[in-house]
């Protein structure tokens, strides 16, 4: 009977710190994000040369061209694959570590 094992571990867990964190209900509680994390797009407008290669490889059609020969990103369609960042010849696109993208304003969902 392995009953004793489960009982011992349940009691041990009772007196230790829990492994979950109170993420939003307690201010400031966060687990740090690793550096390769693919979050919201960070776009360097100066470096962009308007080659529009990123539009050809985006799987979900989240990138559109603007009149001034630059691009605009629609975050609500983005699937955060990172293909645009890989293919950009001038490294003007980077995927940052911001993942809290919920908003009430629709304008915040566009990165220009």
């Amino acid at each position, binding site marked *: 009977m392995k*009953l004793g094992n*489960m*009982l011992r571990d*349940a*009691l041990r*867990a*009772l007196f*230790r710190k*829990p*492994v*979950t964190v*109170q993420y939003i209900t307690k201010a400031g509680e966060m687990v740090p994000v690793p550096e390769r994390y693919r979050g919201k797009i960070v776009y360097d407008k100066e470096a962009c040369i308007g080659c529009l290669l990123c539009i050809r490889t985006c799987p979900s059609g989240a990138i559109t061209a603007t009149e001034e020969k630059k691009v605009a990103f629609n975050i609500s369609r983005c699937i955060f694959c990172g293909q645009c960042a890989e293919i950009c010849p001038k490294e003007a696109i980077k995927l940052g570590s911001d993942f809290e993208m919920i908003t009430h304003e629709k304008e915040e969902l566009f990165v220009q």
Partner: protein
Amino acid sequence: MNTIAILLAMVPVVFFISLLFEGIDRKIHARMQKRIGPPIIQPFYDFIKLFNKERIVPVTASSGIFTATPIIAAAAAILGASIPLASLTAETSVVGDLILILYLLAMSSVMVMVGGSSSGNPYGAIGFSRKMTMLIAYEMPMLISIVSVSLNCFSLAYYDIVSTQIRTKSLLAFTRPSMAVAAITFLLCIPATADVVPFDISEAKTEIIHGPLVEYGGPYLALVKLAKAASNFALTFLAMGLFFHLPALLGGYASVGLGAICLCLVTTLILLLLTITVPRTIFARLKIGQAFKFYWLIPLASSIMAVVLSILEL
């Protein structure tokens, strides 16, 4: 007249304490699983939130039974819990004896099942049939152990058994071997009466989507949950009063009055944690055949042994 007033005054106290105990049970259960868990007053939030929801009665249900049974179940469970509590506060036997208390508790759980099966859902019918099978399994050992206790103390009234312990300054479970066996049997029957893993077969979440509770929502669900919490509290309070009345050990000022009540509640909490929370955490759910076999083997045998031993005055 006085006792009836005390009984009615205990009703809000039972309401408050049973929901509080349910909150503590959920918190400890969560901590044993390495997570933080809800705040202790979460059942109160749930109760209030559920009363703000819409009342939905399914088309295939017999609406009279469906809407009336949660109220009857909640009322019966709360009464069943207030009688022992009122007896202890008034220090005399309040209306009714052990048979009445057990009947009220049984009625509460059966009413929930009847209401669930009257909803017209096949899952409700399956849960109802499973609960009836379990009822045959666990009611017998529980009643026979109560019979052995009353044979021992020559009375069926709750307060008489408590005052026996106070007079002899000892816990009933440790006086004689027959009482120890009866105590163990009663404690073994509590998980099945409270519908807790490993015996929560009639309300299995993953198999039959909560069985009879599947069509309940809104205020009806709030009343059903209240009935369950009150019934858990009543069972453990009964077990405490019959077998482990701790204030009896200390005597003097600690055996009567407010101090005694608080000590009783603490003991009830510990018993609740031992018989309801710990099995809920460390066991898996059994099938109906296996649970039935278990209850007809061990608790039934031990309860019959308790009766035989108490007849032989052991």
